[in-house]
């Protein structure tokens, strides 16, 4: 390694021998998992929030257990458990139902574990938001004779959205950073490929800083979109200072 230049920027070039392309593919993997996990978590969250608020006593308690466990156990531990045991258990269940085992790819497993963790978080965020919707609006919808599903899609979900968006946008930022934990199970997302690149070239500081810049850029770009969405969703609300 030449000592004359402290930083060898050429290592970040997009084409080999630079590692820029590898890093960007890692970022793409991270974003894919974050989007997939976030969406999966959101669906779990909608189900969880409605279950917690309107479900029977048993469903409500089960949901409470789910969110309590996820909120009390470190993500890293959950990810290991879900990654090794969760996908295994899923296959056992599928076997029992008679669908037969599926071959769960690394990507699907990553989305699954991030989604389960995010699901508990969004359950809590959405539950708070739904409770903030004036009860009269939901009662009025019921009085119109809407089916529970219709009440959900036509009234509850749209009405709670402005209350949920700040929390949900924070969860998105957390999802993007939680993907880094998948490095521990050997999934080729940004943090792991960064470490491989750093290990192969010994330019640790350069690559870790470059990956940090990519994560930061992802956060900042997300923030711009979040601002736009927030402004859009708060139309018609009285501005509170």
């Amino acid at each position: 390694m030449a000592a004359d230049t402290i930083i060898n920027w050429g290592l970040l070039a997009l084409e080999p021998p630079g590692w820029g392309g590898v890093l960007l593919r890692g970022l793409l993997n991270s974003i894919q998992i974050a989007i997939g996990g976030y969406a999966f978590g959101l669906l779990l969250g909608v189900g969880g929030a409605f279950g917690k608020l309107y479900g029977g006593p048993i469903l409500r308690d089960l949901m409470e257990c789910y969110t309590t466990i996820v909120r009390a156990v470190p993500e890293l531990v959950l990810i290991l458990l879900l990654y090794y045991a969760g996908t295994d258990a899923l296959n056992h269940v599928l076997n029992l139902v008679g669908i037969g085992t599926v071959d769960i790819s690394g990507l699907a497993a990553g989305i699954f574990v991030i989604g389960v963790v995010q699901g508990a978080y969004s359950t809590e965020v959405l539950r708070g938001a739904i409770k903030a919707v004036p009860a009269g609006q939901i009662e009025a919808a019921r009085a119109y004779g809407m089916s529970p599903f219709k009440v959900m899609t036509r009234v509850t979900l749209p009405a709670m959205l402005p209350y949920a968006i700040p929390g949900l946008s924070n969860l998105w930022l957390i999802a993007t950073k939680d993907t880094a934990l998948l490095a521990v199970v050997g999934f080729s997302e940004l943090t792991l490929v960064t470490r491989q690149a750093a290990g192969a070239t010994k330019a640790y500081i350069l690559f870790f800083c470059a990956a940090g810049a990519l994560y930061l850029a992802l956060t900042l770009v997300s923030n711009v979109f979040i601002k736009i969405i927030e402004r859009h969703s708060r139309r018609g609300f009285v501005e509170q200072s």
Partner: protein
Amino acid sequence: MTDVTPPDVTTHAMAILPEDLPTAGSFFKPHRIVLLLIAAALVFCIVWFMRWDWLPQYLPRLGYGIVVTLAMLFSTSILGFLLAVPLGLVQVTGPWPLKALASGFCTIIRGTPLLLQLWLLYYGLGSIFPQTGIRHSFLWPYLRESWPYGVAALTISFAAYEGEVMRGAFAGVPAGELEAARAYGMSRWTLFRRIWLPRAIHRALPTLNGETVLQLKATPLVATITVIDVYAVISKVRQDTYITYEPLLLLALIYMCLTGILVVAFRYLENRIPTRGA
């Protein structure tokens, strides 16, 4: 969305808080008794049918690991909070270079994964040691160890998240209170020490519960830089015995107990210091 700020909502969604604790009486509902029985049966199956013969051999090490985890948690939370106060303050009143520096620091730390920061500190700094004379300095015996890097990374992360809270807390102290203090003829320093700082900390205290539980949930990351905490001990069990699920289940249980104890302690403290609604 009146008095609850968004970060609070998210923290609550991610960390269990004292108000989530069930009351003792709530367990005596018929369906809960049935559920508890099912849970007991499940626990019995786990204990009976899975392999736990490794446990006695590793108990002392597990105890040591728990102590390390708790030491990491408390030292970094306290240090982080001490760092968060100036970080919050300069963002509210500091001269612009300091303000920009502090808010830039918070943005960068909050915008990147803790795991990456940890690896940058440990392996990044380690890679430049050979080129510097640091091995001959008096700090070397500490820099040689891995825990200082874990403490540093966790402290910085806690400070950045809590610094954001402190900024809001400093800014949120009613102007009237500060004006009243000024009218009393307090000097700037006395005003800060007697009114502004205590009021801001008082406002920020409720957020500490959540942030501390989140900090506990972040501690196992230090195991990736060879600190032997409870997570690392369980990893060792997994590697020694090739048993996967049992150690991980035990680890989840240990963290649930630690979180539970922490939350109960917070409820006790909260009842003694009335902070909510302050």
